[in-house]
Structures are given as C-alpha cells and as structure tokens.
C-alpha cells in the first residue's frame, strides 16, 4: 500500500512538471504585459527597468528555467498586482473561502444526490422517481451561474432570507453552496439510481433476501456499497467541474476566493499568480484522483491494492 502511494506520488510530480511547462508556454502567448495598466505613465526607459527587474526581458526559455528552478525550491515567485507579495502568501489567504465552499458543496451535494438516487430506485416508476429524474436533468443541463442568479434574486433580493454576496459568516455561504452543489447532486442522483436498480436486480441481492435479511439491511448493507463503486468514479471528474464552477460562482457572489483572484490575474497578465493557481488546481485534481483510487480499494475488495503481491 505504502509502496503504491509512493509510486503514485512520483507520477503526480511528473504530471505536475508537464502541467507547469505547458501552462508556462501557453501563458506567454497571452497578449499584453503585466504592466499594461501603468504603461501610459511610464517612460520607455522606466518600462525597460521594470521588465529587467522581473526578468521579463530574458528569452522565454531562460525565464522558463528560472521559474522551474524556483518552483523546485517551493518558490512560486511574486505577484505583479500586489506590490511584490509572494504568490504562496496570496494563495494561502485566498484559498480558505474556496476550499470551504467547494468542500461544503461537494459533500452536501453528493450525499443528497446519493440519497435522492436511492429513494428513486426504491420507489422506481413512482412520482418520487419521476420528480427526482426531472430535477436531475435540470441540474445537469442548466449551468450553475443561472441558479446563482435565480437564488440571489429570490432568496436575497425578494425574500431577504440570505445575504446576496460577500463573505462574512456561515449564512453568507448558503446561496453559493446551493448554486455549486446542484450539479454534483444531479449527477450523483442519476448514477445512483441506475446503479441501485442494477444492483437490486442482481443475484446476490436475491440471495440476501432468501436468507431472510430485512429490506433495510439489504439496502444499506448489501446494495449501497456495491452501487457506490461506479458513483465514486464520477465524483473525481465532478470535483474538477466544481473547481471551475467556483470561478464563476465566486465572481457572482463576490466571494474573496481563489477563483475570483484567478480571473483577475488572467486579465492583468499576472504570470506568477496564474502559474501558482493553475498548479494548485492541478495538485488538487491529481490528489482527488488518487483519493478516489484509494477509496475504490476500501469499497471494493476485488481491486484492493496489496502493494506488489504476486
């Protein structure tokens, strides 16, 4: 097991290196420079000094090796927008709200989705099933920013139940969390229903019934675990869409998170911030994939990793 994880971490590092390289060169293709906004006030000579100061006059390959060199030492560089504050520092202050929102939406969304899917499969072809089906289709096909707008309008503006924006306490998280969790909830509900239907029709469920096991135990002890295996598979990619989802949602609800910062950094060509945030998202994504793979082993003994056992 430990050997397996170590191996996976080595692969993660290689993947990250490739991502860093690709992002770096793609980013250099962005038009403009970090100093566009102040360019009018500066003389050419002053501009040259600035570009020299940040190493932006070097040939791109030299910049690349300098950056990678810093990266290996854990240095993500300094931000151009915030008076030379370290990127790591900026990310640390911004990551809190994003992580909080993302985790809250992901956990509540997938649990609700799994419950919804289970109920739909138990009462299949009833009104409960049809309702959950329609909800799921709506949740999958309508983008989160539409829900965000609707939620803001009704719950914040019309009925004044929750604050419309900003980040000052738990009640401020409610609307963005709902807007974010609808997609994972819908996906989980769909998958869970399909899987449960299949599992409930399987031979081992019939055998469990033949043993006289009660319906509740059949659901939770026998069926749930087997039905969860494929659902876990979709949770990985879903987390990614949640990450990109946060970019938009944070903008709409004015949440001082990473997503909001990321969008701004791209607009002003803040190279180190773009690199830093991309790498962070990549680490999170690869990490989630690893966790999903490990979860697989816990849930499904058939693919339990025994670390080089032959």
């Amino acid at each position: 097991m430990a050997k397996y994880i170590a191996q996976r971490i080595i692969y993660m590092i290689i993947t990250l290196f490739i991502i860093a390289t690709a992002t770096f060169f793609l980013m250099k293709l962005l038009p403009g420079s970090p100093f566009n906004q102040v360019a009018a006030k500066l003389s050419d000579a002053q501009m040259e000094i600035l570009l020299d100061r940040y190493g932006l006059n070097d040939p791109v390959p030299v910049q690349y090796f300098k950056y990678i060199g810093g990266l290996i030492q854990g240095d993500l560089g300094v931000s151009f927008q915030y008076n030379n504050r370290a990127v790591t520092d900026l990310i640390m202050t911004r990551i809190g709200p994003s992580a909080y929102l993302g985790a809250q939406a992901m956990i509540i969304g997938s649990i609700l989705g799994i419950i919804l899917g289970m109920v739909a499969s138990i009462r299949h072809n009833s009104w409960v099933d049809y309702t959950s089906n329609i909800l799921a289709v709506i949740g999958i096909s309508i983008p989160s920013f539409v829900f965000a707008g609707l939620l803001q309008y009704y719950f914040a503006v019309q009925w004044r139940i929750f604050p419309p924006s900003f980040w000052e306490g738990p009640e401020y998280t409610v609307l963005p969390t709902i807007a974010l969790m609808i997609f994972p909830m819908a996906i989980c509900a769909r998958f869970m229903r399909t899987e449960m239907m299949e599992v409930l029709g399987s031979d081992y469920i019939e055998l469990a019934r033949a043993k006289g096991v009660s319906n509740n135990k059949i659901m939770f002890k026998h069926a749930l675990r087997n039905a969860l295996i494929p659902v876990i598979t979709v949770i990985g990619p879903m987390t990614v869409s949640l990450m990109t989802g946060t970019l938009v949602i944070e903008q709409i609800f004015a949440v001082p998170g990473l997503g909001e910062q990321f969008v701004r950094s791209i607009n002003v060509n803040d190279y180190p911030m773009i690199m830093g945030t991309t790498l962070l998202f990549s680490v999170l994504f690869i990490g989630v994939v690893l966790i999903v793979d490990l979860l697989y082993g816990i849930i499904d003994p058939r693919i339990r990793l025994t670390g080089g056992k032959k």
Partner: protein
Amino acid sequence: MENILEVKDLHVTFDTYGGKVQAVRGVNFNLKKGETLAIVGESGSGKSVTTKALMGLIPKPAGKIPKGEIIFEGKDLAKLNDKHMQQIRGRDISMIFQDPMTSLNPTMKVGGQIMEGLIKHQKMNKAKAKDRAIELLDLVGIPNPKERINQYPHQFSGGMRQRVVIAIALACNPKILLADEPTTALDVTIQAQILELMKDIQKKTETSIVFITHDLGVVANVADRVAVMYAGKIVEIGTVDDIFYNPKHPYTWGLLGSMPTVDSKEDELIAIPGTPPDLMKPPKGDAFAARNPYAMKIDTEMEPPLFKVSDTHYAATWLLHEDAPQVEPPAAVKRRMKGFATADASDEKGEES
C-alpha cells in the same frame, strides 16, 4: 411419510408491457420429509418461478399469486406478508442459486455472508456465529475454513463459491432446501462433487430438497421423485423409477429421447419439435398438443386431468384415458428406458461388490 410442504393449485402471473404472463398455471405437489423432489422441464416451463413463489421471492408488484396455497407447518405462505416471510426464509426454507459467480455479494467477506442468517434467525452473537460459519465451511468441504472465512468471494473458484452458497443455505438447518439448478453453471467434474455433497448433507440433516434442473442425468442421480413441468403445469409426477422406466406423458418421452446416453447412436437424439407456447395466451386444451406427434382431437379441445397410473405416478395426458388408443413410446426412448434399467442394475452390483 408426512408431508412437510403442500402446494395446491398454485398460480403465478407477471404483468408485463405485452400483457399478463401466466408463468405457473395450477401446480400441485407435496414434499415429504427427507425426500428429494426434482422438478424438470425446459426453460420457461415455470420451474424457477414455482420455487421463487415458495420463498415469497416473486418480484412485486409485477408478479402475483392470484390463486393457490402453499401450506407449510399449517401456514399458507402464499398469503403471508413479507415481514413474516423474512422469518421463514433462510430459517425454515432456504435456497441454493444457479450461478455461484454472481450470487455472492462481492463486497462482503464470505464469513459475514454466512453469519448474517445465523445472527438474524438464531440470535447468535458474532463470535458464536463465526464458529458456526467455520463449522459450515468445513461441512461443505472447504479447506482451511478459519482463513477462508475472512476472504472475499473473488478469492474463491466457482465450485468453492457454490459450496459457500450451500453453506449459507444450510446455516440455520432449514427444513426445506430449494436448489435452483445448483450445478448448471459448474463444469462437469465440479457438478458431480456438488451433487455428492448435497446428497451427503441430506443424509446427515434429513432436509427435504426440491431440486430444479433440466438435466435428467442429474435427476437420476439425486432425486427420489420427479415432477415434469411444461408450460406452467406439472404434466407427469412419479418416483424416479416411474419416470425413467415407465414414462407415460409424450413430453417426458421427448425429454428422455433428447438426453444423450453413453451407448446412444448419433441419430438417436430426438429433439422435441417446435417451441413452448406463449404463456401470455396459453392455448386451449393441452398446452403440449402442438408439439405432440400423438395429439388427438380432444387435446386441442380440453385440458387433460392428471390420470393415475399407480399410487405414486400421475400423468396429464389423454393417452391414459380408457377410450384412447394404445400408444407405445418411440423405439429410441424404449431402448433408453431399458438402458436405464440395466445401468441401474449394474450400478447396484458395483456397489455391493
């Protein structure tokens, strides 16, 4: 011997998009204590549905038992609700399934799957149930039961899994064991082992067994009595000797004729022509008439009742009516009947020596 189970005029129907399927259309039989009753018939004849009905495992709401009684210990199982049936399933009546590759829960340890019934029905605590599970694995012939109990189904071979399924079925010393084609999915050498195991266990526990199969070779090996099912009805029922040496129903002749034996010549395999009738619209008269070379006019008009051949032997064919012409089974089937008799005799001699 006393009857442990009486099935009277059992009907099972399924509602489908195409209409109502009458899967079982009036089945009657008794099961005696300690005997093995084999139910044979081709796919779709209602064998499995009958056993599922006995277990209360007909999938609802599509499946229904509109008519009939299943009397077990003075109770009519056909009318018990699911809560009561849960008490009977696994404790008094248990079941061995066809495909051991799919009938064990892949995410649960084998031990846990055996212990479940013990904890529920015999109110054992975990430690006691575990001891009993080890005992059961030993009983069904699984080596190293103490280690095997902590393994998952995918660590077992097909034959070993079927032994586990049998252990699960036997856990609470059931009075009736329903075996739904327990050897069909296994290869032949393992089949023989599993059959031996079941016979062996029956000797020890005196369980009554209902053995569903379409393999007449298996029937000859395990059964005391045989019921032949066709299109949702029992068309002939009798002891193994009755069915193999003195079959009366043309369908039974067909089954025997289509069964290869060691000394049958190539051209001797007789297939029954045609296909079973559509049970959404069961035909008028005898359901087998359309495939029956001996069919008479009355077969298309009226359903034959069960005619008594002897105290143990009944068959539902108009050929047994006193006005019917004398019809002999086809020559190949007759040769086979003789073959069974001599094979049996030599078997017995072999055992004696």
